[in-house]
């Protein structure tokens, strides 16, 4: 299962034939992308050149790198895939568990240990020198760095497409990973041969980016890889059937926020292409860090920077304490009952968000199914950078807005209503001391619900989230994509308008007769 629908491509589809041959099956990660066969061609070119071609490193060495880095990333999909591959390649489970738990105590050969240290501390010149002193050639070091970049590519991609593991998910143990300060250097390799002036990949890059990004000049030891990388970019960038070339170049160089993109009304194909483009961006970002090649490609999200000082990044990333984190983790591991628990916890919040926007309880109940199905579908890509509840409300908000657009194309959360300017309170008679004693609870609810429903949508939704659902202001701002000042201004306006609507029912008895006369 993934976020995207699967289309049959036939057994002769070359990228699938290559994957079938190398993995023994076509992993779900790739089956999740059949909406855009050309991106599969792009990926297949890259993966074949790095992983399936035996040049300096063996397949087992490369799979080991992929396994430990997937563990560092906490990516259950990739961890399970590479664990299974290594088993198929004949590495016993016990050995794999030792390597993942602490490779420095796993009795690895000095060269393999040096390779793993190198990929854990990418960009660190000493680690590269240590690898050289263990007899690893420049070609081996380059291939290890390429494999680390491929790991980041696969992890970003699998999270982005929401692939569920192909096999029973393996629990990821806690890791012993060396930390080091990174010292970037452009002098990793003793020689970087200059390719001929008419070398097609360089011509393509010059045309596409204006000049050749340094990360490519640093890989001239492997023209076949450069060819594969630029073939992949050609498949990815040139067609404009989903995103435009300029959009993709932006995502490639600067990244994108997938959680936001998913809720912005893009087509499935566009979102898929954004995910793939971002994964390629992450690949080049790790590569440039590993090669000390300067920074043309920026990873948008902090944890996408590279496999640099990962435990530190992880630590500093934990900025929100989320009471739902454990439950979310269980769902990601395949526990569907945990999803039901999340629904039970948040049904009121989702319902109120939907009512707040749609302005109708029947429509809101109807939209709940859509919302929770989207939440389930996108959960593998939810990275916990906001609280789950905030993320959930933003999905509910966008689901409701989408429905609203279908129903009333002109209405939006940003519209300026006739009351926007010049709102002045008109009901200024004193209220009774204890208004809640005047009506039964059911009557009170009815009064409030009617009053809230009559508010313009932009005030209604904020009041619903802040005062009725009592969402903290920061979470409401984040879920609605508004600044805190805008939330405050809309909330005040909503409260004052609601006060105005309720006033005739609550003014003190001495004033009531005249107030009813005014409103009737």
């Amino acid at each position: 299962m993934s976020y995207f629908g699967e289309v049959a491509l036939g057994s002769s589809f070359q990228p699938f034939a290559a994957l079938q041959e190398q993995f023994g099956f076509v992993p779900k990660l790739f089956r999740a992308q059949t909406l855009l066969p050309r991106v599969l061609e792009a990926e297949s070119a890259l993966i074949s050149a790095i992983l399936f071609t035996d040049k300096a490193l063996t397949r087992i060495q490369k799979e080991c790198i992929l396994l430990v880095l997937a563990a560092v990333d906490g990516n259950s999909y990739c961890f399970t895939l590479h664990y299974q591959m290594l088993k198929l390649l004949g590495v016993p489970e016990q050995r794999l568990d030792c390597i993942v738990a602490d490779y420095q105590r796993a009795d690895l050969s000095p060269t393999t240990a040096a390779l793993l240290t190198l990929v854990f501390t990418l960009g660190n010149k000493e680690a590269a020198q240590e690898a050289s002193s263990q007899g690893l050639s420049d070609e081996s070091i380059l291939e290890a760095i390429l494999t680390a970049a491929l790991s980041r590519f696969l992890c970003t991609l699998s999270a982005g497409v929401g692939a569920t593991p192909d096999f029973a998910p393996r629990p990821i143990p806690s890791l012993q990973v060396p930390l080091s300060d990174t010292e970037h250097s452009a002098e990793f390799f003793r020689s970087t041969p200059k390719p001929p002036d008419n070398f097609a990949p360089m011509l393509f890059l010059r045309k596409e980016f204006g000049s050749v990004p340094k990360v490519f000049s640093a890989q001239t030891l492997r023209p076949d890889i450069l060819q594969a990388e630029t073939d992949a970019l050609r498949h990815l960038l040139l067609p404009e059937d989903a995103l435009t070339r300029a959009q993709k170049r932006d995502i490639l160089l600067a990244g994108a926020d997938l959680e936001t993109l998913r809720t912005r009304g893009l087509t499935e194909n566009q979102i898929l292409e954004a995910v793939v483009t971002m994964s390629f961006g992450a690949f080049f970002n790790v590569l440039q860090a590993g090669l000390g090649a300067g920074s043309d490609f920026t990873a948008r999200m902090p944890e996408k920077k590279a496999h640099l000082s990962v435990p530190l990044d992880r630590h500093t990333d934990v900025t929100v304490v989320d009471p739902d984190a454990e439950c979310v983790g269980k769902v990601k591991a395949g526990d569907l009952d945990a999803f039901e628990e999340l629904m039970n916890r948040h049904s009121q919040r989702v319902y109120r968000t939907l009512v707040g926007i749609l302005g109708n309880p029947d429509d809101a109940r109807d939209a709940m199914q859509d919302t929770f199905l989207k939440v389930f579908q996108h959960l593998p890509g939810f990275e916990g950078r906001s609280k789950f509840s905030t993320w959930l409300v933003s999905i509910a908000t966008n689901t409701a807005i989408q429905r609203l657009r279908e129903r009333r194309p002109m209405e939006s959360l940003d519209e300026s209503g006739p009351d926007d300017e010049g709102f002045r309170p008109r009901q200024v008679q004193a209220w009774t001391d204890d208004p809640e004693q005047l009506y039964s609870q059911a009557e009170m609810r009815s009064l409030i619900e009617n009053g809230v429903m009559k508010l313009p949508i932009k005030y209604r939704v904020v009041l619903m989230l802040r005062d009725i659902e009592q969402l903290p202001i920061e979470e409401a701002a984040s879920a609605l994509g508004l600044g805190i000042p805008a939330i405050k201004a809309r909330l005040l306006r909503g409260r004052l308008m609601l006060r105005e609507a309720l006033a005739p029912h609550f003014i003190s008895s001495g004033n009531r007769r005249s107030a009813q006369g005014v409103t009737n």
Partner: protein
Amino acid sequence: MITCADFMAEIGNYLEGDVADEVRHQLEHHLSHCQTCTVLVDSSRKTLKIVTDTGSFDLPEATFRPIAERIMARIRSSDK
């Protein structure tokens, strides 16, 4: 001296308790002699209390349960 218009410009922050002491003193001084603004503050506070206390827009469990069951059925069938 602040006017009713000045008071209205600050009423949101005042209701949230989010004003500096000096501003709060000025606003409260205005309230001490302005019946209209006093009514506005009092009725706005009561509005907020009613809205937060009444439990409006509750989705009854009996309404939610069949929705939840439909969602879980969809999820379980697509996960197979």
